[in-house]
């Protein structure tokens, strides 16, 4: 919780425990501090400054040495020359009217979009003074084009998409931002019921799989999963991009053998007796990001107050959705035809994690889907390593820079705090995918360590 400390004070530690020593832990210290400081704007400034300083000086000791050597005001002036601190702070100022109150936000009808969708019927947008129309869209390519056309002010996207758009992979490069992850976990590998005895992935040679989009966590996770089991995802199986609503129909028609898809598609395949759930993606990578709330950089800079209000609504909804006891209520709100257009029980099974697996068993897994808005920079870096691994991205990439510019962790931290969630203190972390550790500081070594790759 070092987000609110003055990063220009050489005496404070940005990354470790309670600095004053009077409190048991950092949270308590912050609560005290927040109580004393009535000026919330100052806090907002601190968050921005802290993030900038952290990005510039990943090692705290170095930052302190630098500050001791040149002094706080010189440092601030020096940094302001190449980073518009003033502007970033301004974007966070609480005051100011909404530039626009009627907004359109696009979504794809899947449970990943839960925070975006539920904010409409459950009034999270209205509470921020926004009148938001959530518009159902046919596919990710259309969502991308409609957001680029500015028909949508913001949209539900797959978390790799803002990176791909910014880098110009698969479209012309346009600076894009992703201020919040919507959901973590919540996807699954579903196989056709006729393959119920072929549970071992090694026997999947020649299978046809569907994923929702080329630039999706689904594609990268499926490829990762297959490659870890010794199958080359480009040579041993066929992976094609199919919009989620068409997946069950295709599975039913035997056009595909299985898919790694967002819910409710997996549960719907079970509901219709067409497939069974083989592996939940949380068992591949526990806590992986999936879908995201995204907006163009232009929207963020031109309408900072509207952007902030919108993001706050999403954050509040995410905080609400992250509580198990609210999930049934959410399922009822988002299942009707205006939103997901699915039977309530299907959505409820996905959100509560008590579900039928398609083979006659009832499974209980409360973490099947979870909601955590924090856009970890290390997520972005992992996604870029996979883009490189499978040949979508060629040449050298400044991983950390792209991650920082697209995944707006600073904004998320500030707003998570405001809505009563506990934001993490760093923007990068190590995690393991199928037992293998990923170190965001060494992306190239990570890519090189894989046997099956296209580099």
């Amino acid at each position, binding site marked *: 919780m070092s987000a609110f400390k003055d990063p220009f004070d050489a005496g404070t530690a940005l990354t470790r425990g309670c600095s004053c020593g009077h409190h048991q832990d950092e949270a308590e210290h912050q609560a005290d501090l927040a109580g004393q400081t009535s000026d919330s704007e100052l806090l907002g400034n601190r968050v921005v400054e802290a993030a900038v300083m952290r990005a510039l000086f990943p090692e705290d000791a170095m930052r302190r040495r630098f500050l001791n050597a040149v002094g706080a005001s010189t440092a601030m002036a020096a940094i302001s020359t190449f980073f518009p601190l003033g502007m970033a702070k301004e974007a966070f100022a609480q005051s100011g009217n909404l530039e626009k109150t009627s907004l359109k936000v696009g979504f794809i*009808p899947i449970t990943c979009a839960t925070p975006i969708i539920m904010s409409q019927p459950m009034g999270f947008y209205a509470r921020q003074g926004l009148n938001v*129309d*959530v*518009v*159902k*869209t*046919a*596919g990710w*390519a*259309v969502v991308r*084009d*409609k957001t*680029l*056309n*500015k*028909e949508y002010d913001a949209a539900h996207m797959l978390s790799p998409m803002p990176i791909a758009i910014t880098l110009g992979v698969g479209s012309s490069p346009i600076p894009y931002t992703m201020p919040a992850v919507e959901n973590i976990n919540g996807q699954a590998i579903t196989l056709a*019921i006729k393959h119920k005895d072929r549970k071992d992935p090694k026997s999947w040679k020649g299978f046809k799989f569907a994923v929702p989009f080329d630039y999706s966590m689904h594609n990268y996770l499926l490829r990762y999963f297959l490659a870890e089991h010794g199958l080359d995802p480009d040579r041993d199986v066929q992976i094609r991009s199919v919009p989620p*609503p*068409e997946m*069950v*129909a295709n599975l*039913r028609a035997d056009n595909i053998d299985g898919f790694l898809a967002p819910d409710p598609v997996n549960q*719907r395949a*079970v*509901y*219709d*007796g*067409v497939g069974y759930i083989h592996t939940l993606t949380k068992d591949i990578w526990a806590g992986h990001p999936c879908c995201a709330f995204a907006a163009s950089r232009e929207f963020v800079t031109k309408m900072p107050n509207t952007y902030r209000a919108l993001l706050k609504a999403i954050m509040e909804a995410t905080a609400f959705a992250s509580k198990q006891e609210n999930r049934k209520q959410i399922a009822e709100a988002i299942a*009707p*035809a*205006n*939103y997901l*257009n*699915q*039977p309530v*029980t299907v959505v409820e*099974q996905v959100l509560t994690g008590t*579900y*039928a697996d*398609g083979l*006659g*068993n*009832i499974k209980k897994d409360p973490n099947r889907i979870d909601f955590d808005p924090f856009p970890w920079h290390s997520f972005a870096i992992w996604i870029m390593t996979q883009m490189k691994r499978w040949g979508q991205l060629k040449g050298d990439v400044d991983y950390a820079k792209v991650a920082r510019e697209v995944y707006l962790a600073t904004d998320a931290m500030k707003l998570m705090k405001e809505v009563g969630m506990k934001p993490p203190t760093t923007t990068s972390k190590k995690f393991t995918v199928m037992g293998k550790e990923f170190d965001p500081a060494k992306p190239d070594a990570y890519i090189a360590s894989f046997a099956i790759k296209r580099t």
Partner: protein
Amino acid sequence: MNRLMTWRAPLLSLIILLTVVGVWHALTLPKTAAQTVDSEYAALVGAAAATGQKSTFPTPADFGKKIWQHLNEPFYDRGPNDKGIGIQLGYSIGRVLVGYLLAALVAVPLGFLIGMSPTVYRALDPFIQVLKPISPLAWMPLALFTLKDSAVSAIFVIFICSVWPMLINTAFGVASVRREWLNVARTLEVGSMRTAFRVILPAAAPTIMTGMRISISIAWLVIVAAEMLVGGTGIGYFVWNEWNNLSITNILTAILAIGLVGMLLDLMMAKLTKLVTFPE
């Protein structure tokens, strides 16, 4: 005897309809299989999955109930993504008419000019032949990218797909006006504008109308595909949204509605064609 003859065809139509519905009913009779799973599990899945089967095609009775439901409430509006089938059809017809009328405004005058000059006709022919067979779905990404507006893109796709039959038919109709009539006009020293409107236009009108009739059918075919892709509103979006929910009964209802509206549009054009046709 004569009265019997006139009733014979409708009677046959009715018999065909009843046979189709009967076969449909027989094929989709619900199989009474025993539940293969415990009831707690059965509550979580669909009725078919509980008996170890895939979900089945709806029966004619289900279909009838669905149609009744839509007829009772064709114009409901429950938010931007859930509107009644009547409203959706309205959106689609609106889009078709705008795109189609724009196409007519361009195609008929242009076709007229092309038809009057054999050189222009031959010069433009290769372009028309290449552009004519392009599928609406192929135009869509291009339209979205360049026009930067999905509503305009949908109308553009209607326009571009319905323009060609009208253009070709107008040009053909104008080019094949009988030589003698033009010669008579020339000997009577009729001005060229007057020739165009008083001789060529009436003579070519039936061919032009045939082109317009083909075009309206094409426009109606195209709108469903375009709306499935762009989404938002319209009958194509309705089909896509119900596909999302795997609701075959709703999709069948939409198919029936699309067919009926298409037939009405075609009938209208057929009536108009009759108005401008004259016996020689």
